[in-house]
């Protein structure tokens, strides 16, 4: 493929103006792409960041401008067509067109699916009552913020994952009585090491939060259409005025399914992030890709993943490059004064070395699989995180024995 020039650059249409979709458009323009670029999103208004929705946004009085990714002028200045408040309803692959809700069509030379994910619904009776919320959009966050204002209430968090824990921390700080219900025996079980999970649980308990492990919610009881209690599978009733359901998200793949693209826990893409139709790419929360770092297929939900995949696809559109996608995955979460960062993709069975001090809450967990370092988790040790990101981007790997030495230090500047 020849690099695009003013004459031959075919239009790019991006479905979804979230973290990934916006980045595709921005990177296309940064890279000098001259063809038409249009980003379409069902949600109204300017694209915004989701991470603050479970953190500062819930306590701030700030409006949406604080979390917007770009100003309105950015789209004008860069000739990026932003169509928000209207969804893409169908893809016509033969004609190279997408259909919008209002019956309008957009031609594409390349189409990017950046449709994100939707919160998994709690499949129990009573989940549709007032006071029961999920958290994905600005509208969800505004509802939750309203519920957390006012007199101290009883807040039950269903699911001990990142979003649930972040909201639990905010709710506890606001003076609510918080209970977390997690079906597995530890927090963040899918990704965090036992050391990290235990530390996070301890910090939540120190703030008065109760954590119920190994139980699942069987019903939400209410009165007059509003939730009043959460019923667990051992018959326990937890009083509740607010219930936040944070039990994971499912990728939005309906468009891809209807267009006949391969879909399996997300839109299936190859190592270049192309779907089963090479004129269509998929990125971010909705994409299932073969991860170089995990050595298997995976679907990640993080800002890094959406942004780096967006940059990769934009570069491929501009240059026609056949480079595989290899960015190092990383993620962060903030809860109380805990600033937790993870880099890499952990495997189930691993050997772990802890550096630092779990008592003062500044430590890093180095995780090895088959003797090879693959993940570093840091708690209030950002320099380790920055260093680990640089290290994992190279082929260098310290051994567990080297890391175990007290003098071991990850100096980011060694790898720059």
């Amino acid at each position, binding site marked *: 493929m020849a690099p695009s020039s003013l004459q031959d650059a075919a239009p790019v249409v991006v479905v979804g103006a979230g973290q990934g979709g916006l980045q595709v458009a921005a990177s296309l323009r940064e890279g000098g792409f001259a063809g038409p670029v249009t980003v379409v999103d069902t949600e109204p208004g300017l694209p915004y960041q989701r991470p603050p929705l479970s953190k500062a946004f819930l306590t701030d009085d700030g409006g949406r401008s*604080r979390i917007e*990714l770009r100003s309105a002028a950015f789209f004008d200045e860069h000739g990026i067509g932003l169509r928000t408040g209207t969804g893409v309803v169908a893809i016509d692959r033969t004609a190279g067109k997408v259909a919008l809700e209002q019956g309008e069509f957009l031609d594409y030379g390349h189409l990017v699916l950046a449709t994100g994910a939707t919160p998994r619904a709690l499949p129990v009776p009573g989940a549709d009552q007032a006071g029961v919320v999920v958290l994905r959009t600005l509208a969800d966050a505004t509802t939750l913020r309203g519920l957390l204002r006012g007199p101290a209430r009883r807040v039950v968090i269903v699911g001990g994952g990142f979003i649930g824990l972040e909201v639990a921390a905010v709710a506890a700080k606001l003076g609510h009585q918080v209970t977390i219900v997690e079906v597995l025996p530890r927090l963040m079980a899918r990704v965090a090491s036992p050391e990290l999970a235990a530390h996070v649980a301890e910090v939540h308990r120190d703030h008065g939060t109760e954590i119920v492990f190994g139980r699942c919610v069987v019903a939400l009881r209410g009165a007059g259409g509003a939730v009043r209690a959460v019923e667990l599978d051992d018959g326990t009733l937890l009083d509740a005025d607010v219930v936040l359901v944070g039990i994971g998200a499912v990728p939005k793949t309906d468009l891809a399914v209807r267009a006949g693209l391969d879909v399996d826990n997300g839109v299936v893409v190859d190592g270049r992030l192309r779907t089963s139709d090479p004129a269509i790419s998929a990125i971010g929360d909705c994409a299932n890709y073969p991860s170089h770092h995990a050595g298997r297929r995976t679907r990640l939900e993080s800002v890094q993943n959406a942004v780096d995949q967006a940059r990769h696809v934009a570069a491929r559109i501009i240059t026609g490059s056949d480079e595989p996608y290899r960015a190092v995955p990383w993620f962060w979460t903030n809860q109380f004064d805990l600033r937790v960062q993870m880099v890499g993709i952990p495997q189930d069975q691993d050997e772990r070395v802890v550096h630092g001090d779990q008592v003062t809450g500044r430590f890093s967990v180095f995780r090895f699989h088959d003797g090879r370092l693959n993940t570093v988790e840091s708690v209030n040790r950002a320099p380790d995180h920055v260093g680990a990101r640089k290290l994992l981007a190279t082929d260098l790997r310290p051994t567990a024995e080297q890391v175990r030495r007290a003098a071991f230090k990850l100096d980011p500047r060694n790898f720059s």
Partner: protein
Amino acid sequence: MARITYISPAGVKTTVEAEDGSTVMQTALRNNVDGIVGECGGNALCATCHVYVDEAQFAGLGPIVDFEEELLDCTSSPRKDTSRLSCQIPVTGAVDGLIVRLPETQE
């Protein structure tokens, strides 16, 4: 509202109006000032929003908290006495007229 001036390594000046409650990093991104990446969204986790604050104005910005302090040792371009992470500089009337110089590299 405050006016903030960003000076690129090549000496190009861009002055923009910043909104109260925003940060010097966010203001740069929203106004498309090149040279600040802000990869972590302003969480003091990435050190890609490094700036050199005008010497005369540095002290007026208030103290640097420990996690910013640590991360300033991870910047891609060398740290100087006036280095700050721009995501940790909130916009208030007090920073009106702030001048920051952008480093050669952020990543």
